[in-house]
């Protein structure tokens, strides 16, 4: 085993702060400072050219800024993005959920409240009398969607603007979840990408 020369350790061993050894070129600051300034000037000039061209209706395919101008311009949301929940419906318009309580059980934040009830149709066992999700507590893990045996709940509304003035209004009840209000870009009901349902 090689003996360690404790008196001549490299600088990086001795100090907790990693020191970069600078040569004379870096120590006189100016060349490196000018290099940095040239970099930012490059961005400045390029973006100014693009902005100016936009005023005259040219170079529309190039963006002068990488940011999105939010309320007018939205970021494309991926199809599998987990947005606000919605409850699916049967063909006759009633809820698909059978009140099996699996989602309420699996939910890590305990934010689903289901009150089950006997279904009027004797061939169907149960249905939820009320189904509430406290959206403020939800952590959007998607476990409820994963666990549901009858695909009665989905998070594909693409709705990300979940906001309100009042906490009590942020508890979504069954009617709200079944209203099927979807955000922009939500997949249609007969989405070919959801082939696994068939």
């Amino acid at each position, binding site marked *: 085993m090689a003996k360690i020369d404790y008196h001549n350790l490299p600088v990086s061993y001795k100090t907790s702060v990693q020191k970069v050894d600078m040569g004379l070129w870096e120590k006189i600051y100016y060349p490196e*400072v000018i290099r*940095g300034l040239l970099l930012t000037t490059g961005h400045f000039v390029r*973006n100014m050219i693009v*902005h100016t061209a936009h005023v005259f209706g040219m170079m529309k395919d190039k963006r002068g800024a990488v*940011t999105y101008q939010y309320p007018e311009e939205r970021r494309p949301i991926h199809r599998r993005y987990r947005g606000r929940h919605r409850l699916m419906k049967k063909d006759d318009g009633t809820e698909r959920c059978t009140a099996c309580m699996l989602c309420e059980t699996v939910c890590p934040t305990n934010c689903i409240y289901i009150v089950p009830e006997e279904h009027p149709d004797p061939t169907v066992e149960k249905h939820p009398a009320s189904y509430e999700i406290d959206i403020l507590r939800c952590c959007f893990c998607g476990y409820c969607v994963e666990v549901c045996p009858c695909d009665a709940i989905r998070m594909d509304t693409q709705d990300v603007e979940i906001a309100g003035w009042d906490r009590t209004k942020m508890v979504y009840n069954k009617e709200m979840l079944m209203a099927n209000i979807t955000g922009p870009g939500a997949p249609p009901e007969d989405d070919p990408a959801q082939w696994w349902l068939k």
Partner: protein
Amino acid sequence: MLETAIILAKIWGVLLTLVTLAAIMTWVERKQSAVMQDRLGANRADVFGLRIIGLFQPMADGIKMFFKEDFVPPKGDKFLHTLAPIVAFFPAVVIFAVVPFGDVLRIGTLEIPLQVARLNIGYLFILAFGGLTIYGTVLAGWSSNNKYSLLGGLRAAAQMISYEVCVGLSLVGLIMVFGTLQLDLMVKQQGELIFGFLPAWGIFYQPLGFLLFFPAVIAETKRVPFDLPEGESEIIGYYTEYSGLRFGLFYFAEFIEIIVMSALFSTLFFGGYQVPYLYADGFVFPWGGSWNLPHLVVVLLQLGSFFIKIAFFCWLQVLIRWTLPRFRYDQLMRLCWTGILPLAVLNILITGGILLLIKG
């Protein structure tokens, strides 16, 4: 009577121009930094739906400043707390008085020098009032009755006093070359030519002097990369306890300083209002040929050239502010005392030697 009226007109003209430019600078700083960082910057302030690329933002800021609570720490010194921003603001504006923004304007027999005050101690006046801004920061730190503000104020004082030495010494070479402290005489000499074609700007006489003067001035005005006195969120600066219009005054003083310092750079090193090859009655080109221009056009060209130079240096200072990281305090002090100061002294020696050789 007419004399007084002209002087008053010049004072108000310069003051209003400075304040307007400073307001525009706040917008420029926002927008330029945004464009440099591939953003768009503040563009939402509008009047009746009219946005004109965010130009209303300075007004919105002003209104906000007016309506914010103006808070004085209960155990702070109310008088000094009010005085401090004024002390910081005043010198920044007053320095511009000795900066010539044009040659003489002739209307009939009337000769109006385009400069507020023709002082023969011009540069010393600038140093003296530049030194006064230190009081603003120290008073702000002291009167806030807040330990961190006080430390920030002292830090600022140490930095500014150190760099004042550098600002003073790095310019001695230039004063030796021009043989005067009066700024308009300096600019006049810069209208001549070296070797018959190069404009006799200070930068060509004193390249090292400029490289030392530039960072020293930026440190003196407490801008990034030397903005330790402020250090907004990390090390807490001297105006922590300021809000509302008092804070606004500090903030505004900083932007006026940018403009005044830009004017100073162009006056001392880049020929001030001079346009290369432009003389009192038109262009005379070194490669032969001339182009006569009426007096008014010449004056306007000079004003325009001065303005363009100021705009360039404002742009450069904003570019620097949004590019470089901050110096650590020991690095800052080391740069001053072991970097700029010895080089400035060396610059004086070299300049003296060369002047001795040339002029005998």
